[in-house]
């Protein structure tokens, strides 16, 4: 197990380093000229050159990369052009807000999906099963903002039970704040419903068909009791693993959802940085997004290896 952990963590570190190279190249090499990007096409060449040297872009590429990497490793992401303050602090605040949104989403969507999967399994082959399976599949392929628009119209405007802005008015209590997060959280993670429900459904069917369950039923345990004791325990672990794997992908939806609901998280920060060509902020935010994904996949892999020793053997012997 420790060999597996060391190898997996080592690979994760290499991937992280490569990610930093990709992010740096993507932001700095492609344009060739950040000052031109900031000042626009009509700016005078002299002022472009002046801004470039002010920002340090006239230095050699490698020197700039190691400067940036050194900064990032010590927690210094540079200064945002747009907000004229520490990019690291801006990213940390925004990340906190996004985590809050993500947590609300997980708490809302995961139990709902588990219930959906178990429900589908108990009605195997019938209309309810097909509705859950097919509906979940459709929602999982829709872009988040499409789900968001439909939810916003349905629950925010036609049947106005939820606020359509993600930010509560100042002075609102934590409960009110939470209520404002429900719509964006649902839109962000609705796509997960299909995945988790499918895994939970398969897990439930396995257990329902297993001998131990039959014995339990024969022993006279009530159906609800059987489901609670055997089914949930067996369907839960694979569902957690699938959630951990899929959450990384959900980060991409943050940009779109936070823009749609105007929520001050990492996604909106990234969007603003991209729109205003704030390269230090953009680079930092993108790097953080990638790092989150790599860490989440690592966790999912380790979790899977703990649950299923065969996975461990595969990775170590590769």
């Amino acid at each position, binding site marked *: 197990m420790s060999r597996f952990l060391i190898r997996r963590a080592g690979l994760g570190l290499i991937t992280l380093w490569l990610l930093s190279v990709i992010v740096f190249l993507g932001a700095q090499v492609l344009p060739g000229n950040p000052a031109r990007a900031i000042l626009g096409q009509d700016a005078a060449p002299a002022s472009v050159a002046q801004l470039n040297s002010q920002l340090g872009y006239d230095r050699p590429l490698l020197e700039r990369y190691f400067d940036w990497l050194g900064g990032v490793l010590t927690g210094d992401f540079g200064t945002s052009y747009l907000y004229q303050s520490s990019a690291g602090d801006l990213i940390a605040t925004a990340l906190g807000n996004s985590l809050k949104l993500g947590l609300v989403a997980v708490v809302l969507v995961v139990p709902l999906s588990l219930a959906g999967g178990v429900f589908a399994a108990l009605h195997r082959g019938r209309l309810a099963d097909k509705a859950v399976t097919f509906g979940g599949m459709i929602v999982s*392929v829709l*872009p988040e903002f499409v789900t968001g*628009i439909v939810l916003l119209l349905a629950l925010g405007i036609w049947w106005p039970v939820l606020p359509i802005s993600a930010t509560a008015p100042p002075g609102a209590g934590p409960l009110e704040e939470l209520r404002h997060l429900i719509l964006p959280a649902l839109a962000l993670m609705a796509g997960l419903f299909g995945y988790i429900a499918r895994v939970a459904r398969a897990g439930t069917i396995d257990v329902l068909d297993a001998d131990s369950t039959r014995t339990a039923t024969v022993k006279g345990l009530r159906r609800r009791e059987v489901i609670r004791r055997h089914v949930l325990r067996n369907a839960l672990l694979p569902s957690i693993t699938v959630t951990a794997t899929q959450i990384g992908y959900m980060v991409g939806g943050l*940009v779109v959802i936070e823009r749609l609901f105007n929520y001050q998280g990492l996604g909106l920060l990234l969007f603003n940085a*991209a729109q205003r060509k704030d390269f230090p902020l953009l680079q930092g935010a993108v790097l953080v997004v990638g790092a989150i994904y790599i860490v989440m996949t690592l966790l999912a892999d380790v979790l899977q290896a703990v649950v299923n020793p065969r996975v461990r053997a595969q990775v170590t012997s590769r």
Partner: protein
Amino acid sequence: MTATSTPLAAPSARRARRVATVRALLRRPSFVIGTAVLCFWVLCALVGQAIVPDDPYATDPANALASPSGAHWFGTDALGRDVFSRVVVGSRAILTISLLAAGLATLLGTTIGLVMGYFGGLVDEALSRVAEAVMALPSVILALLALTALGPSNLTLVVVVGFAYSWVIARTVRAAVLTERGAEYVAAARVRGERSPYIMFGEILPNVVPVVIVEFTVRVGMAVFSVASLSFLGFGVQPPSPDWGLQIADSYGVLSAGAWWTALFPALAIASLVVSVFLIADNVQGALSE
């Protein structure tokens, strides 16, 4: 899907298999539905401009935000433009860009995957790490980074989205090539003294074509997803071109004023396109692995 056939017997056997696959596909109702919806949008993209009731670019401020009626089936937007005409004509940009991006991704990804699987060793190890690093970024965010640097244009969009997805394809193709590499026909080609590029593209590639086809169809759906999202964010198709993502971005602000039609119809259009492509991809995958 297992391609253990010798190169001599391969072409006719392959053709027979292809016919069987198409027959199997046509028996699947969800494949037929998906194909019908996709064909509808392709038709709109090809001839939409000629058949729509109104000029999708013509503004009419006196008639702004009119609700759906006989004159304007899907209502009008904040500039008084006909939403129905814009939805029909808007299919062109997203379909063209997504298909080209998926095509580019397939071309790039298949090549990288062949190289990884065929050469193995250090080349494979290094490219695998790059693939993992690129895939750590959601395609929308990777594209946002590159589009900020390069400036938004349709060509940039194709290249950026194509690049982002090529690495996912490369990994799948690599896995397929690994199972082929040990086959007798590869060893025979080596003994004949064939060059590596010929063995990769002439011998191995025909046998991993099913994998490549599945990857392409899946990536078309993902490309529609990304391109629509990027347009919604303002980094994709640029105004005043009619485009679904852009239409939603322009009009979700007036939703609370009650003008639901400006955003809902393009949203449904995106949904129908993404779902139809997914149904096709899912069925193709199922039919090819039968």
